[in-house]
């Protein structure tokens, strides 16, 4: 029947076609039939109950509006996602009775605070995702049984300060995401006990300086995100302890000064992003000190969006650019701001000229 086909073909989760001029009882039956068909396919409809699945490992529960909050969570639950609700609190015993929980996703709620006992029932937790909540602090002792946690995401909360004690006991941490908060400083010894940390994301905060010992200690970082902060200088001591660093993002800061030895010892750097800073020049030998990595950058580098002064002090850099131009991102946006005669020229063009 024509009307029914039209309703089915143009059905979308956002719109409900109201069939015009039909017996309302019949139309209700057909609508329910339509819902049944679509939900049986499980394709585009937003479920109004939590998604539950079972496997050999245990149960997985995912809840998002329009579904409600989960009423019953089986004891063998290994994965729990409760996201996009407006929860500002969670009762301290929320995770009671699910001791095998490995992943907990609580993103996009409005959690303001967590109870210090919140994670006590789940000592096997490996992943905790708290992206997009309203946390301003973490209670001391939150992670006291979280020796298995390898991924902690606190992206886009409202952390203005961070205390090293908040992250105590996270022995297995590999990935720490603190991006998108309002951190202005970092405490000394923040990462002192992390031996396995591979990824540290501090991007898009308000950091003006970094404690010089931030990256000292036993950790062996591969990836460091510092983009989108207010850093003015890169000292020579910061990276010296991280020879395994492969990805370094310093773009979108206010860097005007990079110390001569800043990149010394970075043997494995695959990507260096210094774009959108206030760099006019760099010290002699800066690039050479990248050592083997200077020629082996697998992914590339970005120096665009800086007010480069293209004088003889940049000779080192010019030589390096010509040798590595196939790895240069945004060469079209990497231009001289001076001297006057060269204003607006691409660095690469100036570098190639005799």
């Amino acid at each position, binding site marked *: 029947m024509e009307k029914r086909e039209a309703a089915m073909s143009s059905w979308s989760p956002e719109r409900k076609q109201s069939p015009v001029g039909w017996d309302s009882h019949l139309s209700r039956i057909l609508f329910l039939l339509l819902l049944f068909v679509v939900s049986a396919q499980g394709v585009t409809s937003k479920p109004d109950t939590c998604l539950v699945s079972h496997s050999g490992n245990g149960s997985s529960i995912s809840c998002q509006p329009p579904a409600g909050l989960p009423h019953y969570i089986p004891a063998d639950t290994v*994965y729990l996602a409760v996201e996009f609700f407006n929860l500002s609190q969670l009762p301290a015993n929320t995770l009671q009775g699910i001791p095998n929980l490995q992943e907990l996703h609580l993103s996009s709620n409005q959690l303001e605070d967590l109870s210090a006992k919140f994670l006590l029932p789940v000592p096997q937790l490996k992943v905790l995702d708290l992206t997009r909540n309203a946390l301003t602090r973490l209670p001391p002792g939150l992670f006291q049984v979280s020796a298995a946690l390898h991924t902690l995401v606190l992206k886009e909360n409202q952390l203005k300060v961070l205390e090293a004690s908040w992250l105590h006991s996270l022995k297995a941490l590999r990935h720490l995401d603190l991006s998108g908060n309002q951190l202005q400083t970092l405490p000394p010894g923040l990462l002192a006990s992390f031996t396995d940390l591979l990824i540290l994301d501090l991007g898009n905060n308000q950091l003006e300086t970094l404690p010089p010992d931030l990256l000292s200690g036993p950790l062996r970082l591969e990836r460091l995100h510092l983009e989108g902060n207010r850093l003015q200088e890169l000292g020579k001591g910061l990276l010296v302890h991280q020879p395994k660093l492969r990805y370094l993002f310093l773009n979108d800061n206010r860097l005007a000064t990079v110390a001569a030895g800043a990149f010394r010892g970075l043997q494995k750097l695959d990507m260096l992003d210094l774009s959108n800073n206030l760099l006019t020049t760099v010290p002699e030998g800066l690039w050479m000190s990248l050592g083997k990595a200077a020629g082996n950058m697998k992914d590339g580098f970005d120096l665009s969006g800086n007010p480069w002064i293209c004088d003889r002090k940049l000779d080192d850099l010019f030589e390096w650019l010509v040798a590595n131009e*196939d790895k240069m991102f945004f060469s079209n946006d990497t231009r001289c701001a001076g001297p006057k005669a060269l204003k607006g020229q691409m660095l690469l063009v100036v570098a190639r000229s005799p």
Partner: protein
Amino acid sequence: MANAEAGKIFVQKCAQCHTVEKGGKHKTGPNLWGVFGRKTGQAPGFSYTDANKNKGVIWGEETLMEYLENPKKYITGTKMTFAGLKKKSEREDLIEYLKQATSS
């Protein structure tokens, strides 16, 4: 010759968990070789959530545009902790890059 600029977005935001090249390893997330034109949850050898396997759409420009804006909204119950790319232009650039990098 300069890099495909959008490759930078991939390295910055995706490469922690994904590789793109043929035969690339699975990391926290699946290798993405061959993803265009493939149904969700089908990269061989990766352990997906049921939610991802059952999503049932084909990955292409439109589905990826929607997905990458807010992955957790698109696939309820995904393990992906990535919050998404708000900027439309960034998503467009990334998808163009992925088209090349995962198939040629």
